[in-house]
């Protein structure tokens, strides 16, 4: 008990990754390893701004995100996500991680 911390249950579902530089990347998790390196499919970045709504930048293709650069991996609840009004969401971008 308590040891199953892996990302296995998230494979093939939509996840939202917060990187150490404060970016938010949404994509489908295709694979991962023990260093939290991730393989992401169909990614886009959500760029937050306090002046305009959230801008979605399509990154497309398959990306590998290096584990060192990852802060949080969140499982996206599609139902809630579709209900969000991103164009009306105003927020400053997240601060970068400072070790």
């Amino acid at each position: 008990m308590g040891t199953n911390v892996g990302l296995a249950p998230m494979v093939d579902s939509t996840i939202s990754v917060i990187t150490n530089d404060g970016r938010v990347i949404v994509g489908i998790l295709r694979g991962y390893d023990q260093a939290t390196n991730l393989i992401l499919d169909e990614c886009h970045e959500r760029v937050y701004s306090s002046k305009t709504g959230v801008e979605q930048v399509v990154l497309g293709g398959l990306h590998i995100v290096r584990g060192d650069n990852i802060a949080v991996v969140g499982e996206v609840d599609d139902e809630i996500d579709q209900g969000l009004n991103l164009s009306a969401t105003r927020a400053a971008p997240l601060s970068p991680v400072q070790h």
Partner: protein
Amino acid sequence: MLFYSYFKTLVGKQVTVELKNDLAITGTLHSVDQYLNIKLNNVHVVNEQKYPHMMSVRNCFIRGSVVRYVQLPPGSVDVELLHDATRREARG
């Protein structure tokens, strides 16, 4: 290994994890691993007005390397026990 074992005893409890990017996430501790990566269920972000970036996230994985603090439920720390255990560990 000591704190790994200790965090395992907290599984199921409500904790707040403060990250090194000042984000604070509250949720039920689901699991922890050897790197002190933490998985939380039913999360919400403290100060959601300022940080709406995780609004559609209910369950999340937090990389151990970005954790600044873990706020524990009061009464869940047996200070004496942890004290003794850390001393024993330090002695080797």
